[in-house]
């Protein structure tokens, strides 16, 4: 029942996507490198670079000292960011970002093609094992990023999206690869389409959210220390944090739905809607940790940094849930094909 030619084309498409994502990642890296403050200072005012930078820094320190409050501590980086409009970005970096964005689109489309071909080759929804999950997850992540970046400037995030996608695809091809085949009886249900697709989508949005959260925390640490860095050219820290929050409040209801749909399916397949199967436990734990994130963000007296660390802990649980629980824990979700 499997069409091996189509499955072969699906793999060709996947390898092409990986090549394209490699280019995208390099271009995004070149873009960030082009943003380095040292670079354009060198171009603008060649002499006394070190002195200049030191002076710059001391000014920032003064500002921080004078601000005397959390709200104003961001002021220097805001000012720095404001100074560098798109026109300041060196032409080479802008070109690199353009290529990066186009190739990310192309990579996402190739993954979509790979997923469709894989589905056609096995005549079923292509989400039956870890390999297919990883490929579709990467597809959702890259396409979500690309679509979103048509609405706003997300060039700063590109490297942190394409890098992890390449990593996951590499794992998918090397470690999780499973040949195209039909499904186990326990997976032959339309709930697979509903439950697992939403799970993959939620994971993709959580991934972008975790990338944004990571960037926020690093940027925030740099802004506090007052050190100049490429991060000065990113959106200011509170805006980054709000972006990350916005992503999480999209992903959290999706994850809640995953949990409910999974329970409905479990009642169909295993007689009981909740069995404390390891996968269920971890899905529940992820839900609880992200719920804690949302609560911590709404609690006065808990800093946005602490809340962000909770969100990252949630993402760590997602990684464990996928990469560890499927492979090493004994349970009813052991369908990875490994």
């Amino acid at each position, binding site marked *: 029942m499997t069409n091996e030619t189509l499955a072969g084309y699906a793999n060709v498409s996947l390898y092409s996507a990986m090549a394209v994502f490699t280019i995208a990642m390099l271009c995004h890296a070149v873009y960030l490198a082009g943003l380095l403050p040292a670079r354009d200072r060198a171009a603008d005012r060649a002499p006394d670079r070190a002195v200049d930078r030191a002076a710059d820094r001391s000014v920032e320190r003064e500002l921080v000292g004078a601000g005397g409050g959390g709200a104003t501590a961001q002021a220097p980086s805001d000012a720095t960011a404001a100074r560098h409009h798109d026109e300041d970005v060196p032409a080479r970096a802008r070109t690199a970002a353009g290529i990066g964005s186009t190739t990310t689109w192309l990579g996402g489309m190739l993954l979509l093609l790979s997923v469709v071909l894989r589905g056609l080759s096995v005549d079923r929804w292509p989400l039956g094992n870890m390999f297919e999950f990883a490929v579709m997850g990467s597809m959702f992540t890259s396409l979500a990023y690309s679509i979103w970046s048509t609405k706003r400037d997300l060039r700063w995030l590109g490297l942190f999206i394409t890098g992890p996608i390449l990593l996951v695809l590499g794992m998918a091809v090397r470690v999780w690869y*499973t040949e195209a*085949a039909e499904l186990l009886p326990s997976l032959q249900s339309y709930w697979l389409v509903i439950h697992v697709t939403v799970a993959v989508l939620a994971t993709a949005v959580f991934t972008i959210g975790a990338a944004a959260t990571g960037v926020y925390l690093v940027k925030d640490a740099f802004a506090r220390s007052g050190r100049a860095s490429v991060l000065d050219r990113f959106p200011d820290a509170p805006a980054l944090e709000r972006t990350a929050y916005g992503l999480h409040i999209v992903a959290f209801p999706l994850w809640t739905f995953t949990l409910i749909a999974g329970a409905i399916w479990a009642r169909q397949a295993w*007689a009981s809607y909740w*069995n404390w199967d*390891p996968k269920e436990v971890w899905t*529940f734990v992820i839900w*609880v940790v992200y719920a804690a994130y949302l609560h911590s963000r*709404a609690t006065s007296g808990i800093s946005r940094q602490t809340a962000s660390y909770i969100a990252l802990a949630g993402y760590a649980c997602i990684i464990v849930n996928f990469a560890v629980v499927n492979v090493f824990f*004994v349970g009813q979700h052991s369908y990875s094909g490994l």
Partner: protein
Amino acid sequence: MAEHTKDDTRDDTRNDGKDVTEQITQPRLGAVGWLRWMWRQLTSMRTALFLLLLLAIGALPGSIWPQRSIDSARTADWIANHPKVGPWLDRFGFFEVYASPWFAAIYLLLFISLVGCVLPRSKVHWKAMRSTPPRAPARPERLPSSATAETGADAETVLAAAREVLRGKRFRLHAHDAGSVSAEKGYLKETGNLVFHLALIFVIVGVAVGHLFGWKGDVIVPVGKTFANSLIQYDTFSPGPWVDPSSLSPFRLKVDKLDATFEENVTGRGQFGQPRDFTAHVTTVAEPGATPKQSTIKVNHPLEMDGAGVFLLGNGYAPVITVRDKDGNATFSGPVPFLAQDNNYTSVGAVKVPGAQPKQLGFSGLFLPTAVIDKEKGPTSIFPDAKKPALALTLFEGTLFPGGRPQSVYVLDTAEMTQVKTAKDQPLRIWLEPGKTFTLPGDRGTITFEGVDRFAGLSIRHDPGKYVTLVAALLALGGLIASLVIRRRRVFVRVSPAQDAGRTVVTVGGLAKGDDDGLQEVVEDVLAAVERRLGSST
């Protein structure tokens, strides 16, 4: 962010447990005071957060160590293999995490905290929904978002236009003074939030109802046999504490046929031999005297009987075996379920012949659907389908049921039995293929392998609480989406005379709960709409 809106920008209507003024005015707490203090601590947001994280950590051990409720055999193995750590972990409930007192303590505290938070908030919200939007500030331009314009219309006309615009945008309006309009919308945000939290309580209620009034039973039914839904027919039966096991609904079910197919075409890693389809064809009778009905049960497609779902959760082989005495009289005949041990259905089982004379006979060994004799592993199966079935048995004689103790149907209790040996003092090995008969030494008669049947492993479950849980969970999801998507926004419109006589300055200010990137847009929208309306009316 503007400091003065800080209190307003947080969703935190829980008290913080650090009400400083209260502690100052009440330095010595009586018993009631302490109780109130404890209640405040418990219902504070920080405690809720701590309990949430604790719940996450507390749930983890259940995924790491085997759980008795899921797999008691594996749990017992684990404890036996870890004689030092095992008993200690057992003492602290690590093998029954989700029934352990400490896990219950975490979620009960969490739910008490939730109730203690949600009920007062519901009261506050009820009042808020019936109250009017607050007075507009004297200078709306000082709000986080604002926009100002000057028009030629008089104040009255401007405010009338503003009211129409805001009403069109579904704001709730109120004018506290002649020069302003206050508007607010997004009350559903808090409603959704409260619905979410209250629904979570009903999820737990549904779980509790299922636990108290639900039951489940497992039974192995070989093809051709009939199962009647009563306590004695079950292999295992676990009723909830408030279940009367004598009042199960009296349906009957006969397994006519069981289809099983396995992957034979794809030979890649992890795929060859994987199950592809299991279907049990059954005939059911809803109650004695009712008309029989044909149905199928598949994995993912349970059969819904009156008050219980019938699930096909397992399957395996039941070789049909006949044992005869030396005169050729059958002392045992019928299908014997063998329990699969691996993905290729290498199965173990026992044939117990209590009617054999002079001593009771017991056969113990393996059923192999596709049999090979491996040099290292001995007899084993290399494919799950019955391609080349064989039985590999050894023979014991003596007392089958010493002391009448309950025992597994798949295993011989050999405490009071001895193994039958060959002349060379080797254990007797019986290798049988379908249709073959083996003559037992010492006038013990014969054993015949008639053919291969399959059995269906059925799980039958009654859970009266499942719809409560489902509806509550869906309500929770709806409430959650509402609380995350809807914005609570206040818009104030204030008019004041411009420097030029006859002209009016309109200022629109906006205030939101929480971060709201779209607020400025809303404010500008309102102002633009007001100007448009004034332009078209003059």
